[in-house]
């Protein structure tokens, strides 16, 4: 029998599925430098990067859900909800205790939104796409009820650290490093194996003894929690609350995940790729704004990326069919 076993090394290679995103990143940076010669000037670069920070946190959460075989279309609404909850709790002239309370309230709102999704999907056995699409209106509606029009006040002492560059490294990169560090820790635990197992083959995982429903629930709760972090980051960056602020971020988060090489059907990929994906999305946005074309080009580009990602495996198989 000469079935040549060619792939043990491939397995390691395929884990690095964000190579494609890296190539795109280099291209995007190159085009940006062309359009904006002072692109690498520290103040401009860190300003640019700072706008990606909320999306980065959001995409990390989305990655976890997608890895576990789900998808969360309500992350944008959750960002808004956590944002307005935190701002409303702050009130005018908050004390230190009240600031802490506001942050906790924002996180709790996100966790609750994630739990709602998770319970419906994991225990109610509802379709993730439909469920989270529906809950996005529930969550978004709650946000609007809490703060019908943008407003609120965030003390300078709270938002200043957000804009700082500790050790001359932009805050965004610190957060990226923190996310990667946490993920590296998670990768060494059972949780990461369970996540991939559930996303790859839930039935097999179940008969093996993996607590499938719990893993699904936890993936949505983590996503909700991280979305809340993103909402709080937006509060710090804008110094106001806005119940519609997260609306456009859902699509961006999914695009970042897809670009980062995480398979939409679950079980394959990782957070590192998604972070690179966020930078690609961000740099593409600045290209579009510098190229003086209407902003809906960004939406068009995003949607095309998702379509290509979904069609990709099929196209690839079609091409490979041609040759023996």
């Amino acid at each position: 029998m000469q079935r040549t076993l060619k792939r043990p090394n491939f397995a390691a290679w395929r884990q690095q599925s964000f190579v494609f995103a890296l190539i795109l990143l280099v291209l995007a940076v190159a085009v940006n430098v062309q359009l904006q010669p002072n692109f690498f000037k520290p103040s401009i670069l860190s300003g640019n990067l700072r706008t990606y920070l909320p999306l980065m946190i959001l995409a990390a959460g989305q990655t976890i859900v997608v890895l576990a075989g789900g998808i969360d279309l309500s992350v944008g609404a959750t960002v808004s909800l956590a944002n307005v909850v935190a701002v409303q709790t702050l009130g005018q002239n908050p004390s230190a205790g009240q600031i802490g309370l506001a942050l906790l309230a924002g996180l709790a709102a996100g966790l609750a939104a994630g739990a709602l999704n998770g319970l419906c999907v994991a225990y109610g056995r509802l379709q993730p796409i439909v469920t989270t699409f529906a809950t996005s209106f529930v969550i978004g509606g709650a946000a609007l009820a809490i703060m019908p029009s943008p407003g609120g006040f965030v003390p300078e002492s709270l938002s200043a650290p957000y804009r700082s560059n500790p050790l001359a490294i932009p805050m965004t990169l610190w957060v990226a490093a923190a996310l990667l560090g946490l993920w590296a820790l998670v990768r060494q635990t059972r949780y990461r194996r369970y996540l991939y197992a559930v996303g790859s083959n839930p039935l097999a995982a179940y008969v093996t003894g993996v607590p499938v429903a719990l893993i699904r629930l936890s993936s949505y709760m983590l996503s909700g929690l991280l979305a809340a972090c993103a909402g709080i980051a937006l509060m710090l960056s804008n110094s106001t609350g806005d119940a519609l602020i997260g609306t456009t971020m859902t699509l961006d988060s999914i695009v970042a995940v897809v670009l980062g090489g995480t398979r939409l059907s679950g079980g394959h990929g990782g957070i590192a790729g998604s972070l690179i994906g966020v930078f690609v999305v961000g740099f593409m946005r600045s290209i579009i704004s510098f190229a003086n074309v209407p902003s809906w080009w960004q939406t068009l580009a995003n949607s095309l990326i998702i379509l290509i990602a979904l069609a990709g495996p099929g196209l690839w198989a079609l091409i490979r069919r041609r040759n023996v």
Partner: protein
Amino acid sequence: MNITFSATHVIKRYGGVVALADGNLSVRSGEVLALMGANGSGKSTLSKIITGVVAPDAGQLLLDGQPIRFSSPQMARAHGIAAVYQELSLIPDLTVAENIWLAHEPTRLGRVDTRAITRRTTALLELFRGTIQPGLQPDTAVGDLPPDERQIVEILKTLAWEPRLIILDEATASLDTQQVNRLCELIADWKARDMAIVMVSHRMEEVFRLADRATVLRSGAYVGDVATAETSEAALVQMMIEGGVSPRQATTPNPGAIAVRAELDNIHTRTLHGVSLTINAGEILGLGGLGGQGQPDVLLALFGAIPYRGTISLDGAPVRFRHPHQAMQRRLAYVPGDRGREGLLANRSILENLQLPSWSRYGWFTRMRQAHADGEAVAKTLRLVRDSLRAPASSLSGGNAQKLVLGKWLLRDPNVLLLNDPTKGIDVGAKGEFYRLLTELRNQGVAIVLYSSDDDELLGLCDRVLVMRDGQISATLQGPTLTRTALVSASMSAAQAEVA
């Protein structure tokens, strides 16, 4: 390590269907029990109840004399009961080691101890060394493994739980002879170490080789227990099916004139390395040999489902199918072995499944009455056991589901029928009916190509058998040369040559 386990009067219903009406079984340490029965007799249900995958509606389980109820597979495993599943429970995206230790990873300070995992996995793989490729290592991705090695990983995965009672559900179905032999040695070893073993198998030879005792189920009910030393194959089969087996078709030469229907000339694919053969009308051509020698590719290339190099001609004229659709138009039909994945729309009705390749014959506004009548006619030919044609395909038992897969092509009136191990995992009774159908088709002049992993099937059914080895044809057996010895030696000698 000692264990005694018994199930008494266990009942399980799925909706209105009774899967298990009266399941009884008992086994203890140092014993190999064969759980036998035709498809749909409740074997799988009973083993799932024992391992906590499904909960029984009624009945009692006794573990070491104490009544027990398993609410999940984890709980059963915690009590030392684990199964090697027939439908694989592996995660393709994880590595061999990750799969084997999934859900019971050794940890240190909350972190998975990868070094211990690799070490223990290597030790487990050592059990099958010599029968698996050297490339199969703890860090190989399971998705890249061929079926036999996946099955071995599945066995090792169960073994890693260190069960006291292990259930092997058709565990040998996709293994080659060497691997089966190794598994038999292992089972003997487990037995000596006071494990209890329950094996679910259709292979009589293995049952008589390994089992001390056999428990027979029929239509969800317990028939009886026999010691294998005191019974015979025929007696066991008699217990399994009512009214006896449909006798194997003796090979009689087809009275009709034999005409060449299709010709393959020097075909190359990923697994085929130069295969040439002719397919005759009114003949059943068998493809034999060990598993994984490229047999399915012969069928798939002919059906236009995979790319190939070489020439295929049909009725004397060269053809090149790029899509199964084109092959279907030339009245070729392909019956897959994997019923669940390739053959059926499980949640659609039997009628829809039957008519799926043929709807275009019933016009734009489908003539349902005609379609239903034609469907009934085929169901009758097939002797399909069903409630109604409107019942979902998933309500059929394995054997009937396979008849349905064949039936949907019969409606198209094929003249070349390609069968990819169609009776894998089907019980003796259903097989007999399937053989009868094939023989009828052959006598009507259909050219049939049958790949089978069951040697008896090739011997009993085929006019001519091509033995394959390494993607080539190593022997052609026909008439007086078509004997078990010839078949086994033609496929085995190759394997032994490799070992040397």
